[in-house]
């Protein structure tokens, strides 16, 4: 089963995210800070997808989560959430290899459904990435 880590310091937000992604059948783990996320990543041995808030302990805590997740597994796809259009940090996270970023408040859009779609796409890209690596691995391995 695909494993997803949800990181957000707001209890209600974190619970809503966990609930929605669990409904999709993912195995969801929650963390309420970048520090807790780092521990969860180490404990779980990596995640397929990480959904993290940008602004927690610090305004750019999401970048820490991104770094920790990719340090553990370079194919982990990270989706960054921003509550208050902090585009600069979101762009920075893309530059550092995040899969996508998502604004929490888009008028008239059910961002939870959008997130489900993006997590699905992230999952595909991860699978593609991992299988590419395997094929490459098989070809280059001396027989």
């Amino acid at each position, binding site marked *: 089963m695909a494993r997803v880590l949800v990181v957000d310091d*707001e209890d*209600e937000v974190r619970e*809503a*995210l966990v*609930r929605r992604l669990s409904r999709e059948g993912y195995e969801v783990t929650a963390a309420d800070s970048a520090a807790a996320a780092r521990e969860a990543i180490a404990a779980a041995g990596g995640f397929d997808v990480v959904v993290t808030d940008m*602004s927690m302990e610090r305004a750019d805590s999401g970048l820490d989560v991104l770094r920790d997740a990719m340090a553990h597994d370079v194919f982990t796809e990270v989706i960054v959430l921003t509550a208050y259009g902090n585009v600069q940090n979101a762009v920075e996270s893309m530059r550092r290899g995040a899969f996508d970023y998502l604004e*929490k*408040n888009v008028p008239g859009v*059910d961002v*939870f459904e959008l997130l489900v779609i993006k997590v699905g796409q992230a999952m595909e890209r991860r699978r593609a990435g991992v299988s590419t690596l395997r094929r490459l691995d098989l070809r280059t391995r001396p027989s």
Partner: protein
Amino acid sequence: MDLAGAQGADSGRCSGFVETLHELFADAVRCGATPDVLQRVLDAAMRSVNGTRAFLALVHRETAEMSVAYTAGEGWTEERRRLRLHLAQETNRGITGHVALTSKPYMTGDTASDPYYLAFFEDARSEIAVPVLGMTGHAAGVINVESDAPNAFTSDDCARLVAIAQAASVALGLDGFRARETALIEIGTSLNTTIETDALMRKVVDEAAEALKYEGCSVFLLDQETNRLVLRASHKALAEEVGVASYALGEGITGWVAEHGTPVRLEDPQKDPRWAGLHTEMPADEIGALLAVPIISRDRVIGVLRVVRSRSHSPWFSNRFTEADERVLTTIASQLGSALENAATFKRLVRAERMAAWGELSAKSAHMIGNRTFALKGDLNELRFLLESGGSADRSGELALIDSMERGIARLEEILREFRDFVMATQITLADADINQTLREVIGEFFPRRSSVQLELDLADDLPPVRCDAAKLKRAFSELVENAVSFQPEGGVLRVSTRLMAPEEQVGARLAPGRSYVEIEFADAGPGVSEELKNRIFLPFFTSRTKGMGLGLSIVKGIVDAHHGLLREVGEPGKGARFVIILPVRG
């Protein structure tokens, strides 16, 4: 007159005269015009010229009357002491009145044929009267000595009395200077300690008029928007026009002073071409003298301080203002100018501090509102899913979501309330209030009825009414009460106490001397505040609770700041928090 006899008598009168004079001057300088000093002056005057009877009459300039203030010798009755002389009358002023008006000594050895003599006593044959000169050179009083012998007094006697009268002059003059000094100090002190500008200006007009013998005093301040001089404080009839009466720049003498930044000092101001007579403390035609000086702040005229005196009742006395009066009023005006500037600076400072928080406040609130809304949308998303998929069996899922949404909306409202309270914290309306009563109301409304926290109230009985915004203080107090309760979930103590601060404590706390302060304390037995956090807890967005935006204590600080009070946390870390609020009693 028998020369030898006179000389013999003189030598007797001379003995100790210099010593007596020396003592009288020393007393006058040391004590001023106390009843004791003036009585001794009069007794010495009578003795030094061998008179049978003497009195000291004082001049009342406002009514142009004289009244007997001190008496010596035989035969005085209450009725005679109550005698008054009307100086404005052409006749019956008596020798005393004549001396008061001319400010020159007068002597007669034959009262029966004297043109001025007015009989107080039937047996008086000789009379000698000398003026007691006031600061302005006018007679402030008259010393009058009589004798039942004809031709009893010599020119030497006159010289002695003039010397003795100077001791009374010195005493009265010093009193005048002291009154002026006291008034200036009073005004200076109130300017330093009264930050509410309207109260400050009322105080200036009251104290100036009372102590400096102005009959009417008004403060006009330039309104920046309309560019008109608006009456801000006044006396008598004009007091009711405060905030209404106004002059255009250049209009009337008051407007002229503001336009030119130069003082104007006039006798019979009605004759001046600039005179408009628009807004006067007394009927315009009764004003005999006017003095108006500009109030200057940062090299700009910001208003006019104006005093008036009524027309004199006597052609002998003038009610005009002197150069000394102008200097005093200019001093008061410059003090008032800097005090008003101080008040404006304080307001700007408080506003600037809060403005600096605005950027962060808007970012933070957008972030928090965004997150709450996002969570609410998550709940709605789930609710729709539940309903579309047939719903949960006992509807517990739907109900739980509704609960969650209600909590979410409550938190949004909490944020809005904090936002509003933060913005409004420094906008206060002052009125007298009973702080103890305010605290009791807060406890009644915000302290939980059933709580494991034990409440102790120790409210001082002698607390004076405090000039404050009771509604804002209630908000501040309730924050501290809720804080104490929420930090002691396992139970504890909340001790709320009030007391009037002792003057010596104020020095230590660097509070202005001469003002009274009340202290309000909220002490609990919770975790307290660590040393490193003590300075940060009052900053906006500091929070160790999940509730709200962390504006709570900064709202308390804003409210206390706006009251010109102090807010500190003085508890020992680990042993509970102690929030102390110190508020000035008179705002």
